[in-house]
């Protein structure tokens, strides 16, 4: 024990360390004076470094992934298959985002060094969250993610909206962190440990030996769930989301919209399932309420949006609600023989939902970034009018992403909804399932509206033919692959579903 305290097993955290070192290198090489513009060569170097950091980190994770559960840093840092899988996907998502954002940053004179460094730092925060087995690193990762995201939002500091969005994000994020910390401190008070898996054991043991005083536990739990809902962007804790999505520069919005959802999902899973599963009956009810309110508010309000970023923000709220459905039906109330199997399949449905949502969202924002020019953000719905005439290919890609998010076959979003609904019906929550499908009908409307603009409306007079030729080929190819993945996973969803199932089966 003593030895391990002195010298923790750094090898398990090696990918994170690698990422940190390269992130610092990006910061170092990115330093430049405000007066001179960044040279293209330096830009290329910084992007190459950042991509190296992510890809290297991903490879390292793959390399040392052995499916074994291992702890290090005094049981604070957990290494298991779930962590590896989610970290891999976070790195991949960030890497794709960097490719999509590159041109946008160059055209807007946003300093690439700062942007990439902060983005890598937020990635590091997510990786720490995913691996946290202790309240402390969990909070550490969360703050690293939040603060660097906050700076990312404000990076375009000449725009008042961006600064405003950053302020909102910071203030509300701090409030959410406060909620979370307060809840965790209460739970610490009852269980006497900060270790997530230890909390569960303490609670079970207490319940077995001396009878459990549920009041402080549930009281703390309410705060924890509220904090998590803030981070997930689930209603009624969603107020920050639309303004922040809208105000932030599009690449920062993309970063907020994609990878952190994976991290937040992991945090929810680790805390609620890993730490508080003896209290499942309580938090499942809370999640149910959150899920229904999120789907309702998200889908209803999205209909009224004229700004695509705001629309996607409300759609994100609705999607998080749908994802929560899978989490709140996982553990059946009477422990039957196949209970574990049911729970695992429910959580894997939720995980599948998050992953497919991230895949589609990244693509939708990618199209937005591809269309945008200096002084033209392509974030109003009317900016998409007649896109099919100007660029059938781009319109088709956007249509694929929209249809997938609307949950229509043969796109992956359909099977995500199908899998989650399956577990909801399996658990006997017919009312929840009914609400979910009713709200998806609402959702279909606003996604179709984007298609209406692109396909049914004529291009406005004098609109430039979307110059796909002027965009870097890497971005075009990647966006096409992204859409292809959405379509192909929609036809063959089994592989990814099976991976989600296996990962959760091994890890819990």
């Amino acid at each position, binding site marked *: 024990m003593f030895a391990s305290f002195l010298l923790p097993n750094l090898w398990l955290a090696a990918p994170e360390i690698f990422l940190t070192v390269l992130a610092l290198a990006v910061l170092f090489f990115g330093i430049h004076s405000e007066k001179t513009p960044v040279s293209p060569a330096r830009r290329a170097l910084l992007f190459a470094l950042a991509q190296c950091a992510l890809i290297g980190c991903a490879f390292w994770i793959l390399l040392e992934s052995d499916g074994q559960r291992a702890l290090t840093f005094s049981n604070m840092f957990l290494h298991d298959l779930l962590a590896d899988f989610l970290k891999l996907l976070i790195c991949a998502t960030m890497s794709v985002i960097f490719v999509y954002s590159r041109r946008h940053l160059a055209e807007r004179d946003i300093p690439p060094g700062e942007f990439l460094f902060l983005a890598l730092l937020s990635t590091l925060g997510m990786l720490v969250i995913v691996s946290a087995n202790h309240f402390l690193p969990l909070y550490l990762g969360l703050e690293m993610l939040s603060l660097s995201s906050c700076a990312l939002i404000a990076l375009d500091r000449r725009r008042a909206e961006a600064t405003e969005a950053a302020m909102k994000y910071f203030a509300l994020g701090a409030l959410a962190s406060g909620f979370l910390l307060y809840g965790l401190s209460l739970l610490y008070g009852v269980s006497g440990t900060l270790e997530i898996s230890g909390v569960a054991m303490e609670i079970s043991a207490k319940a077995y030996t001396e009878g459990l005083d549920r009041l402080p536990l549930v009281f703390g739990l309410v705060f924890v769930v509220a904090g998590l809902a803030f981070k997930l962007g689930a209603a009624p804790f969603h107020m920050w989301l639309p303004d922040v999505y809208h105000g932030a520069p599009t690449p920062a919005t993309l970063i907020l919209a994609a990878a952190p959802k994976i991290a937040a999902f992991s945090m929810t899973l680790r805390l609620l399932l890993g730490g508080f599963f003896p209290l499942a009956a309580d938090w499942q009810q809370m999640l149910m309420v959150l899920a229904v309110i999120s789907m309702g508010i998200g889908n209803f309000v999205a209909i009224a949006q004229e700004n695509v970023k705001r629309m996607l923000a409300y759609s994100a709220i609705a999607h998080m609600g749908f994802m929560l459905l899978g989490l709140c039906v996982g553990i059946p109330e009477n422990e039957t023989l196949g209970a574990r199997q049911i729970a695992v*399949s429910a959580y894997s449905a939720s995980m599948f939902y998050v992953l497919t949502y991230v895949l589609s969202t990244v693509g939708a924002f990618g199209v937005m970034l591809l269309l945008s020019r200096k002084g033209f953000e392509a974030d109003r719905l009317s900016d998409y009018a007649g896109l*099919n005439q100007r660029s*059938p290919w781009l319109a088709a890609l956007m249509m694929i992403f929209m*249809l997938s998010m609307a949950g*229509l*076959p*043969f796109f992956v979003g*359909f*099977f995500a909804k*199908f*899998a989650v*609904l*399956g577990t909801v*019906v*399996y658990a006997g929550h*017919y009312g929840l*399932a*009914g609400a979910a*499908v*009713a709200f*998806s*009908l609402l959702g*279909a*409307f606003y996604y*179709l509206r984007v*298609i*209406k603009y692109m*396909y*049914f409306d004529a291009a406005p007079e004098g609109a430039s033919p979307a110059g796909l030729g002027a965009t870097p080929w890497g971005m075009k190819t990647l966006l096409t692959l992204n859409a292809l993945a959405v379509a192909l996973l929609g036809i063959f*969803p*089994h592989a990814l*579903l*099976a991976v989600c*199932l296996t990962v959760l089966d091994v890890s819990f």
Partner: protein
Amino acid sequence: MPPAFLSFAIWIPVAAGLVVLAVGSRRAALSRMLALFGALAGFLVALPLYIGFDATASRFQFGETSSWIPTLGVHYALGVDGLSLWFVLLNSLITVLVIVAGWRSVEKRVSQYNAAFLIMSGLLNGIFSALDGALFYVFFEASLIPLFLIIGIWGGPRRVYAAFKFFLYTLAGSLPFLLAIIYLRVQSGSFSLPDWQNFPLDHGTQLWLFFAFFAAFAVKIPMFPLHTWLPDAHVEAPTGGSVVLAAIALKLGAYGFLRFLLPIVPDAAQEMAPFMIALSLIAVVYIGLIALVQEDMKKLVAYSSIAHMGFVTMGIFLCTALSLEGALLQMISHGFVSAAMFLCIGVLYDRLHSRQIEDYGGVADVMPRFSALFLLFSMANAALPATSGFVGEFMVIMAAAGKNFWIALAAGSTLVIGAAYTLWMYKRVCFGAAASEKVRALSDLSAREFALLLFLALAVLGMGVYPFPVTEATHTSVAELLRHVTTGKIP
């Protein structure tokens, strides 16, 4: 292993559609040729289904089963029986006709237009041949997308409204159906339709499943109070869209009744039959009267479609061998007749860009060949004996007479109302004085249009005189279906 003709019939048109899409609209001539080639290939691979079909067997034929999504328990299971065989054939054929019909009249985004029809053709074949509930649903919902785009892109002035109404109406109907599918899977442990047909269900469950199925399929047919999307969709859709909508898409609802509702919830179906028959009679009489007062030709044919589909649902819920076969025959016949009617209206619209009846008159003087064929189709729409329209309606009326005189009487009124609205429209369009100089300058059918309509005319007459090939194929499957319905399945 025999060739997977059903898979070919689904995926060859889809693949052809993607190829056409890739060719792009700049090379319009090439994309048209490729589309025609793809549609013909799709029809040719569907032909062996008819040739190799064993009409004496009630089991599913040309079956293909493989595991598709094991994690969700979904199989890629295909097969046809007497109920679905003709729809696959009809759909593959109509696709060819639609591509040919759009040859000259569609000039905007040609390749997207043809691709949408090809992809939809494949998806519709998938619906008719799916034997797995989830697979059926996937095709069922996916087929909305191409039709939504067809109405919205190539449609008339109110196309956006019509496209959204069509999409959201049908989606709203199909979502309860989705829950029903998942519920059945949870209860029975499989998505397989044959399994569901033998799975016992208690009365209350059957009743709510009935309404879930009803929501999806009654909207699609459409049945009386849920029909309001159809006139809008028809009026705004381009000719090809109307043809596919009337000839194939409406049949999906009735097919769903035959494939899901009757065999899976037979007791609820029996219980609700009087209600359904009442709704069907309202469709036949009331919607027929509405058709009478229409000023727009397309709207008139749209309402007449609803009335004809009322006959189909009545035949289905009368639930005798005669009425079911009559309903199936009526569906196939309506597929030809409504396609022909919409093509005829399309021919006029291409020339004058109007569908208002009052803008025409005296067309017979300037377009004799067209008027002759149009008359034949109008007669078939009014169910004149020796046309295909007559046989099915006659069988359904006979079956109704066997049950209840008054039902038969009300149903029989359609022979009068149908003749009235169709022939009155024909009279106002083709006879009398020309409404304007433009009408007097109309040119008769081109060789392409003539061939198209002549082909349909032969089909309509052929089915009217010799319906045996259709009834032969359906006979055994209908008997099997009736066996399911009459035994019931309350445990």
